[in-house]
């Protein structure tokens, strides 16, 4: 085994950022002890300037080895040992010098090889075992490898024993099919992957020649991987060489920079090469670069600040949010936009908290109020409205999949579950209790509405997928069939979670006089069986109930396994639970998660502002999981009050919330807003029609209320537990519907609708037009727009209703109406 021997002391010293504050040139690692010709580590050269900023010079430094017989260094800073001995590398850059002592040993005899540690990563790196090729379930042309080499023992068997062993040929290693195919010597569907003179070819060749060892059971295995540096501020069009280290179970550390795989989560900001060089683009922001080796992942975070002079700003924090957003802006050298006007803020808060357009009189009164705390008071006031409860119940009903599937017999359950959610939201039921009641739901759905959740969560797989995505922000579905490619989760983690579902049982609740029907559509009762289990798909053995990163939890026959799972999940110590809902709510108000996508909180998809997310999660735990308190913290922040208008100092910002990002009104809110603007509400078939009945789209209890309007504006069908199913993008069908549908035209032209009444209203036209603008966009019209509208009315003096209809139509199609900004 080749090993780059770094003492642990040296490692910890260098990972401490404080050390980098001294100006000068440094090299990492500070010294090298190389074993064997294949031990060729990367040196990362860093210049620290007087202001504390660190710059990577690995690619531009000059490297000189005192004894050229012992080792050489290439232009990128990679070291190649040549013979046993001791020497020193002198690194020169920008007129400064640093020296790296080096010893090389065991150069005469090749080191023994280990398949999982040295050979398998080659197939992963060259993407032989990728999902599009041999890594897919069916393999490629009869040759299958486990996806990304996560199961080396399986791959080893396939390589050696399938197709009568013709893939490897120890008598003439270079004539092995494995090598002739990979090197493109014989036709290979995947093309030429290896150069016969390259390192990979040589290692595989040597492995075959030495009799294809798998390695000893006592050989060390990888226990984690690390990257150097872990994060760094890199200028635009800048460069950062990474070095990746595998840490083995025996405490040794090995440079695997050239053998790891890399991937950037935002290539607009930073891209990464196969040899671990990160190149930043011309965009301000942050990117996470993943490194993967042998089933382990880690991430390097690049922060790319705006160039130019320091952006100064004055930002008095209102809540904990503001401290952390301001810190991030300083780091990125950007500045926040100005605060939004009262009118804009009011419309924003109304739409975000209640899904409702504010009344004209309320907007005007709010703007006139001299109360210094009026914005905070508005938030408190809105949180107590029934609309808040309806709007957020709708949000939860999407991801809890309150779904009738057009089955009349299911309506009882979906209506009851929706009401249960709404009442929980209105009463601010602590979030941990809310989740526990759903997870551990038991009994007849007529008495226990959360059991309706289990009507869509019917199998152990549904359970893992929905629970992990909705409550833990983890997308576990990958690990159903194979190791998660971007996380540490294995199939055993997946099936460990699935096992908690093993004793859930269902039985129909019989209605006397009614024939038994399709069970899923009938009223049901959920009970906990005294036995029952779930099989791990990988091992075909019974899976022990085990939460993520925790010990197995065995339960007695008189206990509900789900209760222990809920204990683990809702514990304040759970690393995922509070953060997930904090991030979900943040995204609701800011249009983008701190982690984005919101339910993909991977190690390799880091938050854009980790301290902010931690603070929100802590806030939630400290306040006994009160979601209203979380909303107060978010919405009373100064950050939430920023204008959407970008400034020169933040115009490219799209992830650090230096301004408000406008959001298109979601389907139900838009539907209701059109009804309010035209004063033509819609009754939904199947709901009561009396004057107290819910007649707003945000109040609909489930998905089965047919509406072309709601469909084209992106209402989800609740087929997944992902908020991404809701579409808020522009679409042609939606634009057509708003511009030219009979539905919208009829609302606009309805007798005694808004346009009709305004036409008949004796007040001056200017006043009426102003009122329309405030209702539609939250703002008074400019003098120019007012003049234009009045001219339009004058032109249609004889048919004033037509004129008002046209004005309503035009306002309804402006971005000022369609967006919350």
């Amino acid at each position, binding site marked *: 085994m080749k090993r780059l021997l770094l003492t642990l002391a040296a490692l910890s010293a260098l990972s401490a950022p404080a050390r980098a504050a001294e100006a000068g040139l440094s090299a990492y690692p500070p010294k090298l002890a190389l074993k064997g010709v294949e031990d060729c580590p990367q040196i990362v050269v860093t210049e620290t300037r007087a202001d504390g900023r660190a710059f990577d010079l690995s690619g531009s430094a000059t490297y000189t080895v005192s004894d050229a017989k012992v080792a050489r260094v290439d232009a990128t800073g990679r070291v190649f040992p040549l013979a046993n001995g001791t020497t020193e590398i002198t690194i020169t850059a920008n007129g400064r010098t640093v020296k790296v002592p080096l010893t090389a040993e065991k150069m005469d005899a090749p080191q023994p090889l280990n398949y999982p540690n040295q050979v398998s990563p080659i197939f992963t790196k060259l993407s032989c075992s990728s999902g599009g090729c041999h890594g897919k379930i069916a393999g490629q042309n009869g040759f299958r490898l486990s996806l990304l080499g996560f199961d080396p023992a399986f791959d080893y068997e396939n390589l050696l024993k399938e197709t009568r062993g013709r893939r490897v040929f120890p008598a003439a290693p270079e004539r092995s099919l494995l090598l002739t195919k990979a090197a493109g010597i014989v036709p290979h569907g995947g093309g030429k992957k290896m150069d016969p003179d390259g390192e990979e070819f040589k290692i595989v060749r040597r492995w075959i020649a030495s009799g294809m060892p798998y390695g000893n059971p006592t050989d060390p295995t990888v226990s984690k991987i690390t990257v150097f540096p872990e994060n760094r501020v890199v200028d635009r069009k800048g460069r950062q060489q990474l070095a990746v280290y595998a840490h083995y179970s025996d405490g040794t550390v090995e440079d695997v920079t050239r053998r790891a795989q890399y991937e950037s989560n935002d290539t607009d900001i930073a891209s990464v090469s196969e040899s671990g060089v990160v190149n930043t683009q011309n965009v301000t922001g942050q990117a996470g670069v993943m490194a993967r080796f042998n089933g382990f992942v880690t991430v390097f975070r690049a922060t790319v600040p705006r160039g130019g002079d320091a952006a100064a700003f004055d930002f008095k924090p209102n809540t904990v949010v503001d401290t952390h957003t301001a810190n991030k802006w300083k780091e990125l050298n950007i500045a926040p936009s100005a605060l939004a006007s009262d009118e804009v803020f009011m419309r924003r808060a109304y739409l975000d908290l209640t899904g409702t357009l504010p009344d004209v009189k309320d907007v005007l009164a709010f703007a006139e109020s001299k109360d210094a705390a009026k914005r905070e008071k508005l938030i408190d006031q809105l949180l107590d409205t029934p609309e808040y409860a309806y709007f957020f119940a709708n949000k939860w009903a999407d991801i809890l999949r309150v779904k009738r599937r057009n089955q009349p017999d299911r309506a009882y359950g979906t209506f009851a579950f929706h009401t249960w959610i709404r009442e929980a939201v209105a009463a601010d039921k602590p979030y941990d209790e809310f989740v526990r009641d759903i997870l551990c739901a038991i009994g007849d759905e007529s008495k226990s509405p959360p059991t309706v959740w289990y009507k869509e969560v019917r199998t152990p797989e549904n359970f893992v997928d929905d629970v992990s995505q909705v409550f833990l922000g983890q997308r576990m579905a990958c690990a159903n069939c194979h190791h998660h490619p971007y996380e540490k989760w294995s199939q055993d983690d997946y099936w460990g979670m699935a096992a908690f579902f093993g004793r859930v049982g269902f039985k129909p609740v019989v209605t006397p006089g009614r024939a038994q029907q399709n069970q899923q559509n009938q009223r049901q009762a959920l009970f906990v069986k005294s036995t029952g289990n779930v099989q791990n798909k990988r091992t075909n053995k019974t899976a022990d109930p085990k939460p993520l990163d925790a010990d197995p939890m065995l339960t007695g026959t008189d206990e509900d396994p789900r209760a222990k799972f809920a204990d683990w999940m809702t514990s304040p110590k759970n690393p995922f639970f509070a953060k997930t809902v904090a991030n979900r709510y943040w995204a609701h108000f800011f249009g983008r998660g701190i982690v984005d996508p919101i339910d993909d909180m991977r190690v390799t998809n880091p938050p854009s502002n980790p301290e902010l997310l931690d603070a929100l999660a802590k806030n939630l735990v400290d306040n006994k999981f009160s979601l209203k308190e979380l909303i107060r913290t978010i919405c009373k922040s100064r950050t939430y009050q920023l204008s959407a208008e970008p400034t020169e100092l933040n115009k490219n910002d799209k992830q650090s919330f230096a301004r408000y990002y406008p959001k298109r009104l979601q389907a139900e809110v838009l539907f209701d807003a059109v009804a309010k603007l035209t004063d033509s509400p819609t009754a939904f078939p199947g709901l009561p029609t009396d004057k107290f009945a819910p007649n707003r789209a945000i109040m609909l209890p489930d998905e089965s209320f047919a509406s072309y309007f709601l469909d084209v504006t992106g209402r989800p069908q609740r087929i997944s537990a*992902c908020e991404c199913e809701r579409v808020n*993008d522009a679409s042609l069908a939606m634009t057509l519907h708003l511009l030219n*549908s*009979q539905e919208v035209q009829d609302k606009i032209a309805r007798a005694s609708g808004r346009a009709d009444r305004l036409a008949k209203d004796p007040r001056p036209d200017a006043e009426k037009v102003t009122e329309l603008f405030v209702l539609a966009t939250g703002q008074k019209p400019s003098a120019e727009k007012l003049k234009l509208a009045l001219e339009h009315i004058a032109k249609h003096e004889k048919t004033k209703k037509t004129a008002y209809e046209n004005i309503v139509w035009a306002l309804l199609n402006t971005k000022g109406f369609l967006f919350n900004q």
Partner: protein
Amino acid sequence: MLRILGSARRFCDGASRRDFLQIGAFGAGLTLADMLRGGTAQAAAKKQPSRSRKSAIMIYLPGGPSHMDMYDLKPDAPVEFRGEFKAIDTNVPGVQICEHMPLQAKMWDKLACVRSLVSVDEHSDTLVMTGYPDRVNRIAEHPSFGSVVSKLRGEDAGAVPPFVSLRGMSRGTEPGYLGIAHRPFTPGGQGNSNLRLANGVTLDRLEDRKGLLGAFDDTRREIDATGSMAGMDAYTEKAMEMVTAGVVRDALDLKKEDPKVVERYKGVESFLTARRLVEAGVGCVTLSIGGWDTHGQNFTTLKRQLPQVDKGIANLIQDLHDRGMAEDVVTVMWGEFGRTPKVNMNAGRDHWSPVMSAMIAGGGLKMGQAVGASTAKGERPKDRPYSVPQLLSTIYRAMGIDPSQTFNNGAGRPMYILDEREPVKELLG
């Protein structure tokens, strides 16, 4: 053909993650926002290799048409199997079809069929439209063929909807995880009436309103980092054009067609509508004809229906040839399964999924053949068994779409368009 991926690499794994992202911008993950971030839509379109503008017409015969009485006759089988109909020669030596489809027989050089398709016993169009059986798709939600076309054409579709269903919505026409934006446009539904000026609005009035909108709508689209605002502006232009120019509306209006032509399609006008729609630039049209669940009176029913289908197909395919569109339009006709080879006591045939036939034409595929064969009594594939997704895969390829392309579903999992995607080799020629 794989060039639609935006890369000339043909290899199974040639695409690195970075390539994939670039591909995504023009293929899989295409949103208008992406395109606008990279410049204007036109500029983005120029960067990519020429995109296929091929179209597909998918004719669905609901109920399960009898393979033994259409494209796979067994004149030598015992009478209780072969039924009442006789086989006739086509203009391609060695290929025979049913006597009640004489028009197709005269032009078999322009048609082909697959006689060894294996299906599933489900009364649903899910399998033939999505490539996955209904029982799988109730959970997996794979998209309809037309929805995939819609997704890939994206914003590039011009002022026509990319996917039109002339038979309304069904399980098989659902876009599944691609999202409701990719539902088919259904004439007769609300989407269609939106193409006509709403009652109470004249063209002059629309112009009048447009003027007001232009003046009122001064929100700077630059304030929106997601591109959604810019998208909306682009769509407003396009929507206005659709309403005022009315390309799709005209295509759906058979009064705009030569009466002599309409006469040729008498009784099967939806075939003509389909032709007019693909001429207008629609990417996928689906239509259905007849009821084929002939548990009783199979032969009486087919004697009435087969000539209709024959007329529709013959006119459609001939028209496409006459217009030089045969290579650009692939047409397929099939149902959910075949029917029992042995005639039952009601002179009917029951469900039979072990084997069925499909007719296919155009799209640059190899015509003038009958691929595969069933056993002597038409009971199961004798050789070259093909699955339904394999024929769909062939149609995707004919359209220039790589069926191994993936889209992420709601759980973030990349899903292949088709899991089973080895094409029907004989058709690729």
